[in-house]
């Protein structure tokens, strides 16, 4: 996808002025929040599970090299292949090479954020392959030629009406004449279209929710079963995953599983949870002949061991997006890359570009609701603040903010001057708008007064009133 984080401000105004998007956000977001709350309240030990999940991820990250090599050995033992990609380009080339060798015509894809991260679809299509996304949400946005706007609900920004139009436009040529409007009918039509693709695909590409070092397995959870069909029907199965996805054992995975679905959709468990271990063995009735795992670094080892390591615990549940008032206002596309919301605002500057993505860590009120709902307790506000510090140190903070802060500090460290300045400001604001109680326009405060009045001070400052009372 096009990387547009640098245009964050423009993306925001577009999003705020898009009535379809606003309608979709309004409808979509409350559902997730309420369902998570219900699911979590039904598990008395949920807070302990979050601690355990955090500890398992921390342990794994501490010994990541060990567990990755163990994973590779396990996959190899099963007859599969592990490929190491240091960046997005290498990852794309590795996948392209596998597809080329398999003489792939049609490629089905399960939902994979790693795939989005490395712009895999574009590369595969450019090489002449037909690529079909099989997750319903991903399929919808593939038809719309849009990137995902949410890591678990990629088409959450689309209204049902827009989906009706898309299906009608694209499915007509396949013999579906009628424009459908009801959700079950739309799903059924997509299922019929996709079923043909599943059966004809040569290569299936999926992501991984977890990779298991002990068994060499990749685990995916879906609600549509599309991941299973993508993995088992084609001759070749390719898994694309970030290196932080590995866990030591299946036992560890069960802890993460208990927090994942509840945090994501409020389900106790996703409808399908599948553990894939290597290619088809002699006597197996189905499964791929070839099994490949492409492990993607692409900036992760640079995060490892540093002050941002906590973000590598992320299990891509989307809870921080669902609980973020900024995400809820502008949706995911405004962030300008595949990861959005609080986790995206941390990852994008680190994995892509601190300067180009400089708005993302700042466009946050630090309200902390993301951290409160994170299943692996990532201190997202603290990480965003650290990114702001890094920007400040790198002089990426705007000159106006920097000078403003210097001036503020100058005053705040000189109490007598500070009191005089405050008294003067209070007096001026009262002169300007005392009668009405508020001002609708104030010099240098256009940001505030764009949609709000500025309340007028109640009198002279507290400190001067206090002195007057206590010294008389």
């Amino acid at each position, binding site marked *: 996808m096009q990387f547009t984080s640098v245009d964050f401000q423009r993306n925001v105004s577009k999003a705020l002025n898009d009535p379809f998007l606003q309608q979709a956000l309004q409808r979509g977001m409350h559902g997730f929040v309420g369902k998570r709350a219900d699911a979590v309240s039904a598990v008395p030990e949920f807070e302990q599970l979050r601690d355990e999940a955090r500890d398992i991820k921390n342990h794994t990250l501490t010994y990541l090299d060990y567990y990755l090599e163990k994973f590779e050995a396990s996959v190899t033992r099963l007859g599969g292949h592990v490929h190491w990609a240091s960046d997005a380009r290498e990852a794309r080339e590795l996948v392209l090479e596998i597809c080329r060798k398999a003489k792939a015509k049609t490629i089905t894809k399960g939902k994979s954020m790693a795939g989005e991260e490395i712009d895999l679809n574009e590369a595969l299509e450019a090489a002449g392959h037909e690529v079909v996304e099989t997750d319903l949400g991903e399929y919808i946005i593939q038809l719309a030629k849009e990137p995902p706007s949410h890591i678990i609900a990629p088409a959450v920004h689309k209204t049902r009406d827009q989906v009706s139009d898309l299906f009608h436009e694209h499915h007509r040529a396949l013999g579906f004449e009628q424009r459908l409007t009801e959700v079950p009918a739309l799903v059924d039509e997509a299922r019929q279209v996709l079923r043909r693709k599943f059966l004809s695909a040569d290569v299936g590409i999926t992501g991984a929710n977890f990779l298991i070092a002990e068994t060499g397995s990749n685990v995916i959870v879906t609600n549509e079963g599309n991941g299973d069909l993508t993995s088992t029907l084609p001759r070749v199965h390719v898994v694309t995953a970030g290196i932080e996805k590995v866990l030591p054992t299946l036992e560890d995975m069960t802890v993460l599983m208990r927090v994942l679905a509840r945090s994501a959709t409020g389900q106790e468990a996703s409808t399908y949870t599948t553990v894939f271990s290597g290619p088809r063995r002699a006597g197996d009735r189905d499964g791929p002949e070839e099994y490949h795992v492409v492990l993607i670094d692409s900036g992760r080892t640079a995060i490892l061991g540093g002050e941002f390591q906590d973000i590598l615990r992320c299990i891509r549940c989307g809870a921080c997006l669902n609980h973020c008032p900024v995400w809820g206002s502008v949706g995911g596309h405004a962030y300008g890359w595949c990861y959005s919301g609080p986790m995206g605002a941390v990852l994008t500057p680190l994995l892509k570009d601190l300067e180009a993505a400089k708005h993302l860590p700042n466009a946050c009120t630090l309200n902390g609701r993301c951290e409160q709902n994170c299943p692996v307790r990532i201190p997202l506000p603290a990480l965003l603040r650290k990114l702001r510090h890094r920007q400040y140190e790198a002089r990426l903070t705007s000159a106006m903010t920097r000078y403003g802060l210097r001036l503020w500090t100058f005053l705040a460290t000189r109490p007598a001057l500070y009191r005089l300045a405050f008294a003067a400001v209070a007096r001026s604001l009262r002169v300007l708008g005392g009668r009405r109680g508020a001002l609708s326009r104030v010099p240098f405060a256009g940001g*505030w007064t764009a949609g709000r*009045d500025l*309340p007028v001070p109640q009198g002279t400052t*507290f400190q001067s009133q206090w002195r007057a009372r206590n010294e008389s």
Partner: protein
Amino acid sequence: MSENPNVALFVTCLVDLMRPGVGFASVQLLEQAGCRVTVPREQTCCGQPAFNNGDDDDARAIARRVIAAFEPFDHVVAPSGSCAGMLKKHYPELFAGEAGWEERAQAFAARCHELTSFLVDVMSFEPRAIEYKTTATYHDSCSGLRELGVKRQPRQLLDAVSGLQIVEMQDAEVCCGFGGTFCVKYPDISIKIVSDKVANIERTAAVTVLGGDLGCLLNIAGRLKRLKRNTKVMHVAEVLAGRGDSAPGIAEQE
């Protein structure tokens, strides 16, 4: 510790400038609760604007002065969850690893409190003979709620105000869009978020909005005023000090 602790009021820059009544209400409540209250003259700002914008050096420069000015007291109380959160949670982070200051910041943080939680949890205070006949809804400010666990305390105190009925709004715990400098750096998003907040407030049909942080209250009141609404916006301390009827609301004509 004595029954009449020495308490320093950290008035906060916004209260100092915009709403001195909140400062006087805080002093009154603390005295009623049995505290000996001082307002240290050397106070200015807690340093949060610098800290939240990544300017840690300036934040530390301000924090050192705050610690020095307020250290001599048994407790430091602020009528704001945001500023109290800065003193209590973030000062120790700011000085982590800095010999001498780290311990000092930690010892200082342990004595800092948000006003309503101090009144309830430390002083076991109950307002007496306070009346305010109205229906009100309460906005939980994010820092107080999530950094300091302030939720039950203001409601418990308001329960003792006769005639006051609290109607909870949907998403009371969701941010109002203020976010310090966020509201002027990203005004479009901020205004969208505060518009959602105001819509939730209006759905309760409450006559008054209360909260414990002036930043949020200025934001909410400013939006209500722009929409020409009459909903009254006040700090919880003002109501608890018996000024619910006498003081005009924030952004209201005097």
